[in-house]
Structures are given as C-alpha cells and as structure tokens.
C-alpha cells in the first residue's frame, strides 16, 4: 500500500508512510490533505493504515491525533483496526490520562519602557536592601567588639588567606600593567609640552589616589565578591543557613562578619601593594623607554605624592572592601534555592559590586575636592 489518502465508498483511507526520523514525509501536507477531503466529501469514517513495511512512531500518532480531532468534531468516526495494537493503546492513554491543569502563562511580550521601568524599580530596591543589610552588618561588627558575635576564628584566617595572599598575583599583574599604561598614555600627551618628566607625577599621583584602589577593588569584586555570593548561595540551596538559624546562630555574625573582616583587613594591604606595583610599572617605562635617569624618576615620584595621598587611597580600599564583602554576602544570602539562582547571585554580586565601587569613587572625588584632601 502506498502512503497517501484515498476515498473508498464513504470511508477515507489514510495510509501513513514510514516516517522514522526522516523528513521525506510531509506530515502537515498529509494532514491537510485528509482534512480537506473530510470537508469536501460525504465521509462517514476515517480508516488508518500503515504503508507496506512501515513502522509507526510519535509522528504517526500526532498525524492520527490531528486528523481524528477534526474528524470527531464533524461526527466522523476513526477506525484504527488496521493499525498495530500499540497505536490505539497509546492514543487512548493520551486521552484518558488525568492531566494536571496547566496554568502557566506564556512569556509576556517585551516592552522596552516596561522593562526599563522594572529595572529602575529593581535597582532602587537593591539599593534599599543593600543599605539595610549594611546597617545589620555594622551591628554585627559592633557585637564583635563587645565579644558577643559568634563566629569561627578559623573561618577568618581561611578567608584572609583566600582574599590576601592568593590574590597577590592577579592584583600585582593588573596594577603593574596599569602603571605601564598610565606612563605610556601620559608620555604621549606630556611630550607635546616637553614635560615628559611629569610622567612620574602622573603615575604616582593617579595610581595611588584613584587607579590602585579602584582597580584592586574591581579585581576583588570579581574574585572574592563572586565567591562569597556563590558560597552563601550554595549554603542557602543546601538549607545550611536554615540549619544555622534553627541552632540560634545569626548568619550575619557567623557568615558575613568573618568575610567582611577579611576584606576590611586585606584591602588596605592590597592597595599598598598595588601602589608599589603601579609605580614600579611607571618606573620601568620611565627608565627604559623614556630614558629618564634611575634616581631622577625616583626623586620625581617622591616629590609628587605625600602620605595623605597614600592614606587616601588606602582608606578608599578599606571602604571598597567592605562594600564588596557586604554586596557579595547580601546577594548570596538572598539567593533563590536552586543551582541557577546561585549563578545569578554571583553575577549580581560582581555587577553591583563594581557599580558600588564606581559610585563610591565618584563620591570620594567630590568629597576630597571639597575638603581639599
């Protein structure tokens, strides 16, 4: 028997081809054909066959289902007697199996302004939540000094290890190269005025006050902020945080405090280290490509900055460190309870962390200018 549709008496014969994983069979066309024949003729029933040597699969079932649905509406009977027994069994199951009521609405259409509005609202909520988290965290900090905070000292040293020593290479490389870039960039412009020696000033001043704290914090946001969010998010998924709470441990003291302390202790040191590497990068360019004397560059550097500049950068590092830790922990603790939520939390920790660093840098600049620091 050939695949296709024929009318025998007042019965429509639908012969299904062998469709196993091949595109040679146009299911839609066969179905349209059959439906059109049912419409156009005085059909009393539809009888299904398999083409010679053909096997059936889900596609055959879908075709039968599609045709018979329309046929039933018109009061036309389906006859599966020539089909293998499995076909009628499976079709019967698909009709009888109790189905849960699906109520999920489809994806709503995208509206630029709505999306924008939602993002603004969400951003504002983030700011509020993070601020109140910061307040809670500082309370926990207070409990640390009254000796009431419960946390594990061993955790603290572990976090210090992970944020400090283990970050040295990446922070070093980034800051060395930033010193190099700053020196090159400055040299091109300062050459126009014959003031190339001020490259040393630019590097020392710019790096210690702005670049080193900001870029170090950004590196740490990507490294440590994300790690904190992922750690706490995973604990959330595992119900570990619930378990802490039921034993009366405050997640703030137990989890956030040591992480915040570790970054608050390490960031100032990292910034000092970043200062040194950045200036060293500038020195390499100054001495080896701009041909300044070794001592000349050093003296120029010494004259360009004083302790205030260094402390200003270090203090910013401290603030950024606390921001990164708080945002990372907040995102982790408010993470959803499945694996993809942990990924989202880590992403949010990095994005919000970097945003906070840049906003804080801007605020610092305004304040420093106003106060003449």
């Amino acid at each position: 028997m050939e695949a296709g549709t024929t009318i025998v008496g007042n019965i429509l014969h639908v012969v299904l081809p062998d469709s196993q994983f091949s595109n040679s069979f146009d299911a839609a066309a066969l179905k349209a054909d059959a439906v059109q024949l049912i419409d156009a003729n005085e059909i009393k029933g539809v009888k299904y066959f398999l083409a010679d040597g053909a096997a059936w699969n889900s596609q055959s079932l879908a075709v039968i289902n599609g045709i018979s649905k329309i046929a039933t509406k018109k009061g036309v009977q389906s006859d599966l007697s020539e089909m293998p027994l499995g076909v009628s069994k499976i079709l019967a199951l698909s009709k009888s199996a109790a189905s849960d009521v699906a109520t999920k609405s489809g994806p709503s259409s995208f509206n630029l302004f709505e999306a924008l509005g939602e993002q603004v609202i969400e951003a504002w909520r983030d700011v509020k939540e993070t601020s109140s988290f910061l307040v809670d965290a500082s309370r926990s900090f207070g409990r640390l000094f009254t000796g009431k905070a419960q946390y594990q000292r061993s955790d603290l040293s572990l976090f210090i290890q992970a944020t400090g020593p283990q970050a040295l290479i990446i922070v070093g490389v980034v800051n060395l190269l930033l010193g190099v870039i700053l020196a090159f960039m400055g040299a091109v412009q300062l050459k126009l005025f014959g003031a190339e020696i001020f490259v040393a000033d630019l590097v020392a001043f710019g790096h210690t006050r702005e670049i080193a704290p900001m870029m170090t914090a950004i590196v740490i946001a990507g490294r440590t902020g994300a790690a904190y969010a992922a750690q706490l998010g995973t604990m959330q998924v595992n119900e570990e945080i619930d378990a802490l709470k039921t034993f009366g441990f405050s997640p703030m003291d137990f989890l956030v405090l040591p992480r915040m302390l570790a970054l608050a202790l390490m960031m100032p040191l990292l910034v000092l280290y970043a200062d040194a590497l950045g200036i060293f990068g500038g020195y390499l360019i100054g001495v080896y490509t701009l041909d300044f004397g070794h001592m000349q560059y050093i003296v120029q550097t010494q004259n360009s900055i004083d302790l205030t500049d260094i402390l200003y950068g270090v203090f910013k590092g401290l603030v950024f460190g606390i921001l990164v830790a708080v945002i990372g922990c907040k995102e982790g603790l408010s993470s959803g309870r499945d694996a993809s939520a942990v990924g989202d939390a880590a992403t949010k920790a990095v994005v919000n962390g970097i945003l906070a660093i840049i906003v804080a840098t801007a605020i610092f600049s305004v304040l420093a200018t106003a106060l003449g620091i």
Partner: protein
Amino acid sequence: MTTSDTAISIQNMTMAYGDFVIQRDLNFDIRKGEIFIIMGDSGSGKSTLLKHMIGLKRPSSGTVLYDDMDFWAASESERKLASRRFGVLYQSGALWSVMTLAENIALPLRTYTDYSEKDITDIVALKLSLVGLAGFEGFYPSEISGGMKKRAGLARAMALDPEILFFDEPSAGLDPISAKRLDDLIIELRDGLGATIAIVTHELASIFAIGDRGVFVDADAKKQTALGKIDDLRNAPPNAKVAEFLNRSAPGST
C-alpha cells in the same frame, strides 16, 4: 486532654508568602512523645508548615504554642532559647559543608554548653554511633552518601538532646533499605529519649510503620482536610483525597 500532654499546638494558623496564601486556618495539637505525621500533596505547604514551627517563618495569622509559650509573640531571644529544645533534620541533611561531621555536631555543643573539649569529643562519638556512623568524625559531608548525610544530620539534630525532633521528608531519595533503617532509628529514638517527633513524609510505608497521628494538608483546598490517628484515617478516610493518598487508589474506586 490537658495542656501538659501537648507539646505543640497550632491554632488558627494561616501561612502565606506575601499575598500568596499557602494554607488557611490550621488547627492541630502534637502530643508529647508521639510521632506525628504531616501529610499532603507536593506543594501543599508541608515544608512551609515546618518552617513556621521551628522559627524560620512567621505565620500571617494564628499562633504556635510550645507548652504554653506563644512562640511568635515571644521576643527573638526567648524564641532562640525555646528553639534550643528542638532539633531539625532538613530534607537535604543541611550539614555545614565546610565542617567535618564531628565539627558539625560539636558546634552547637561548644556554643551552648560548658563541656570540656574531651567531653565534646566523646559526645560527638556517641551521637555518631547512635546513627551508625561511628568512626566518621573526620569526614566532610561531600565525602559521604545521601543516606549517611541524613543520618549525620540526625546526629546533629540530636546534639543538644532535644525534646522535639522535626523531620522534613527523611526518607526521600533513600533506597528502601536505608529508608527502613532510618524509620527504625526514629522509633528507637522516640522510645529511648522520649522525644516528640513531627515528620513530613509521603512514604506510605513509613507513615504506617511509625506514625501515631497525623494531619493532611490539601494543596487545592488550602486547608487541613484530615486529622487524627493514622489507622483511623486509613480505615475511615474523611474524604476521597485522603483515601486516595493513604490507600494509593484513585478516588471513587475501591
């Protein structure tokens, strides 16, 4: 029944996430020393109910009484103190993954007791041996199987000798033998410690093997639709859904 045989009393409690109501007007008592089963279809709010009883989530209305203490009306520090009297075994075990099994059990002991380190080591070893994990002190949660995690979680839940133990689906994800072992352990603990036990489960074998009484929360009706002795509920189910649940038969059929 006098108050003194009641360990926990749930009165007119409504639970909701935001505006989304999960269950309305729950009313039941858990008696001292019994194994009380919380049943219901999935998504009906069984875990949520447990969270309300152990202090993780505040009811949107109604009360949770422990003996005569209104749990959610009490101050946070009173609540913390009260919660030291119960132990919780979470669905996934919820062992603290950065600590060894010994440290997991020792942490509450170190925090809330004045025992010496030596005593704590001995207590930890005892608790681990109670759940058949003697010698596993130095293992991290990631190094043991799912069934062992649950048992270790149970050892930790018992760290402070609780009067009430809560279990969220203890046998979910366990093979039949481990599940049976856990059931036996639960009964022995009840008999040995005289603890009150509240269990969320839909494992029929467990329900009939260990349950004294239970409540059924219905996801569609959003309220409790059955309460009483497990045997009574099975023999004379108050409604078709409970009959279906406890007898594994379609409603209407026999």
